C-alpha cells in the first residue's frame, strides 16, 4: 500500500477525453468484456457507447452506469498492477465505484444501487422539473446573494474556492445561471441531469433509499473511504449504509475532502474513471499534491513508480 496515494472516483461524466477505452486496453484490461458483463446485468446495450461522441449523454441512467463501469475498469487494472491506495473517495455517484474498489460491495451491487437510487429519485420528483449547474468565478457569498431568499434552489457542493454546484427547480437554476453570467461568472454550465441531487428535494427519496440499503450486502472495506459529506474516514459497513443514503440528499464538500486527505499525507490522487473533471477541480485546491487523470496516467507511470 502506498501511504501517499489516494484513488478518487468521478461522478456522472459530462465530458469524456474521447479515447478512454483505448487507454484502458493499453493496460491489458479487457474493457469490452466488462461492458458485455454489464449488459448482462443491466439488459442495456452499453457496448454501443462511443466516448468520442458521448452518444448516451441524454440518457441519465445508462450514463451513470457507464461512469461506474469506466471507474471499475480503472480500479481493476490498477489493482492488477498492484497499485494500492491508502484512501479512496467518490464524488457524488463516484461513491459506488469507491465502494467497489474497497471491496465493500460487488460489481453487480453497484449497478443495483445506481438503478434503485435513480428509480426512487425519479418517483419522488415526478411532476416537477429540476436541474443542476456549475458556477465558476464567484465566491460562495456571491452565489448566496444571487439565490437570495429563494427556497427552491441551494448550493450543494463546494468543488474548490472558485467553483460551486447549485441544485433546484429548473427555471430557478436557469435564472441564477443567467444572472451569474451577466454579473461576471467566468463559466457557468447547466448539468445534463434532471434531478436535484444532494438537495432538500431529495429528503423523502433518501429515506426510501435508506430502507433499501439496509437490505444489501455491504462488507468491511479493505481501504478506508473518505466521506464527501463530513470528511470522516469510513471503515464499517453500517457507516457505509448511512453514507449511501445521506449522499442522496446532503450537501457535499469536495474541496474539504481533498484537503482532509492531503492533510492525512496523501500527495498523489489518481482520478479513477473517465474524463478529467476531478483533475481540473483539483487545480484550484491549495495543497502539496498532484492529481493525475486517465489521459495522463500512461505517461506518469512511465516516469514514476507507485
Amino acid at each position, binding site marked *: 500500500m502506498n501511504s501517499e496515494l489516494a484513488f478518487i472516483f468521478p461522478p456522472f461524466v459530462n465530458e469524456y477525453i474521447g479515447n478512454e477505452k483505448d487507454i484502458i486496453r493499453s493496460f491489458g484490461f479487457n474493457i469490452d468484456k466488462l461492458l458485455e458483463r454489464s449488459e448482462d446485468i443491466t439488459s442495456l446495450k452499453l457496448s454501443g457507447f462511443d466516448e468520442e461522441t458521448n452518444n448516451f449523454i441524454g440518457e441519465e441512467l445508462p450514463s451513470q452506469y457507464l461512469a461506474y463501469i469506466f471507474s471499475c475498469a480503472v480500479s481493476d487494472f490498477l489493482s492488477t498492477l498492484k497499485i494500492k491506495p491508502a484512501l479512496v473517495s467518490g464524488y457524488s455517484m463516484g461513491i459506488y465505484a469507491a465502494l467497489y474498489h474497497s471491496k465493500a460491495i460487488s460489481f453487480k451491487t453497484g449497478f443495483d444501487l445506481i438503478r434503485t437510487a435513480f428509480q426512487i429519485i425519479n418517483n419522488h420528483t415526478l411532476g416537477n422539473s429540476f436541474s443542476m449547474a456549475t458556477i*465558476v*468565478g464567484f*465566491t460562495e457569498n*456571491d452565489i448566496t446573494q444571487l439565490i437570495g431568499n429563494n427556497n427552491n434552489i441551494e448550493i450543494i457542493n463546494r468543488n474548490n474556492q472558485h467553483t460551486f454546484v447549485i441544485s433546484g427547480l429548473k427555471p430557478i437554476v436557469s435564472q441564477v445561471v443567467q444572472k451569474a*453570467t451577466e454579473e*461576471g*461568472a*467566468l*463559466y457557468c454550465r447547466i448539468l445534463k441531469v434532471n434531478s436535484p441531487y444532494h438537495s432538500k428535494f431529495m429528503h423523502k427519496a433518501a429515506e426510501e433509499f435508506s430502507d433499501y440499503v439496509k437490505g444489501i450486502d455491504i462488507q468491511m472495506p479493505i481501504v478506508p473511504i473518505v466521506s464527501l459529506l463530513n470528511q470522516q474516514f469510513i471503515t464499517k459497513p453500517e457507516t457505509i449504509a448511512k453514507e449511501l443514503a445521506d449522499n442522496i440528499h446532503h450537501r457535499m464538500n469536495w474541496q474539504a475532502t481533498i484537503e482532509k486527505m492531503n492533510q492525512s499525507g496523501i500527495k498523489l490522487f489518481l482520478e479513477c474513471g473517465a474524463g478529467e473533471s476531478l483533475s*481540473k477541480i483539483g487545480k484550484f485546491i491549495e495543497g502539496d499534491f498532484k492529481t493525475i487523470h486517465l489521459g495522463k496516467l500512461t505517461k506518469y507511470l512511465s516516469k514514476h513508480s507507485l
Partner: protein
Amino acid sequence: MAKITENTRSEVSEVVYNFFMEECDVDASEINDNTNIIRDIDGDSLMFLELIEIFKKKYTLNIDLKTIGKFVVKNPVETIGQLIDTTMLIIVHENNITEL
C-alpha cells in the same frame, strides 16, 4: 500593484504558450496568436482561470475574479493573442479594468 517592465509582455507570452503546450499536448509549431483556444486546441474556460491564478501569484495582483468576468463578458477572449492582450490589461489595471 504589479511592476511592469518592457519584458512583461514577453514573460506573459512565454507563460501562456508553455501552458497551452503542456495542457493541450501541442507543439510550439502548432499554435500562434491566432489559434482559437476552444476550437483549435480543445482548450476550455477553466484554463483561463488557471492562467489568471498563475499571473495573480507571479505579479502579486489585486484582482477580483468577478471583475475580470465582467470585463470578459464585454470583451470575449477566443484566441491566444487575445488572451495575452487581456492578461496584460489585467496586470496593468487590476480591478480598474472595468473602467476601460
